[in-house]
């Protein structure tokens, strides 16, 4: 899958493109990212690079195992750690404790952004699955946002598996694919991406090269 970046969603705004069109954008703080650990086929059985982001200012909040993990590479403890599965050449090129540069992306590139979506709590079928609900007039009572029938009678005698019903919605891992990069600012590690990304402001996100769309 290749190496990616970790970041924090700072919020959304809009910019004007060269034709004067309004483009909705999301601003992401994507760095500094450091490689904390290297896992190799010979030692761990698979190739991956562990990347850390967002330094923890209050060192007393870090537990002892993690403190040791970061002390090994001489980097301040970080809040967000993720592994990226990489090929053999990425393992050779990248050194432990080196910074992952935001320069791997350029304006015009396409990326996939992964985050934890906003939690919606226990949601009904209208909000959760887009059911239409029941007619609001002509004698409907106490049955406005219900899902209707959940199955037949004696045959099959049970409700089918996978039936869409109310339940917990949101707060799950979501990936949005093929988002265009509008601007990359190397000095401040700011990434500006066209469109919306999952999660709340200040939520952590993972930014990877687009799997499906190449430039």
């Amino acid at each position, binding site marked *: 899958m290749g190496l990616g970046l970790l970041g924090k969603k700072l*919020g*959304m*705004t809009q*910019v*004007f493109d060269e034709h*004067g069109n309004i483009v909705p954008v999301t*601003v992401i*703080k994507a760095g500094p990212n450091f490689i904390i650990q290297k896992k190799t086929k010979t030692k761990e059985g698979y190739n991956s690079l562990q990347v850390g982001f967002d330094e923890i200012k209050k060192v007393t909040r870090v537990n002892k195992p993690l403190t040791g993990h970061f002390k090994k590479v001489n980097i301040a403890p970080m809040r967000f750690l993720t592994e990226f599965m990489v090929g053999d050449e990425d393992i050779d090129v990248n050194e432990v404790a080196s910074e992952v540069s935001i320069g791997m992306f350029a304006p015009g590139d396409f990326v996939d952004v992964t985050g934890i979506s906003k939690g919606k709590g226990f949601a009904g079928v209208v909000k959760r699955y887009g059911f239409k609900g029941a007619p609001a007039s002509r004698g409907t009572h106490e049955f406005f946002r219900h899902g209707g029938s959940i199955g037949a009678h004696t045959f099959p005698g049970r409700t089918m598996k996978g039936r869409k019903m109310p339940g917990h919605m949101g707060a799950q891992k979501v990936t949005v694919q093929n988002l265009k990069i509008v601007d990359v600012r190397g000095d*401040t590690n*700011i990434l500006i991406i066209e469109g919306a990304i999952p999660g709340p402001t200040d939520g952590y996100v993972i930014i990877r090269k687009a799997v499906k769309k190449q430039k």
Partner: protein
Amino acid sequence: MNEIVDLIEKEHMRLDLPEISIGDNVRIYTKIFEGDKERIQGFEGVVIKKRGGNTRATVTVRKVSHGVGIEKTFPLHSPLIDRIEILSKSKVRRAKLYYLRKLKGKAAKLKEKRD
């Protein structure tokens, strides 16, 4: 709002335009592209609404043309806006002049502000 987002918005702001207030009579000149030709078109009327901060700000201008009310909303900081002329200012007591939509002729006239 996050301060970094705020700074990014400020970069795109246009500082060459005059400050518009509600009730002003303005003429807004916009660039219009037709094929590869560019021309400039003016739209004259009363500012009845302002909203949004920084680069997101828009103004709504209303005029009555051949007895039909026309309202146009312009993104204030768009590069397509050529220039804005303020023709006159009016004395108004509200932030949004939606009540003008119900009025016709002389009743829809605003008192001019002189200083």
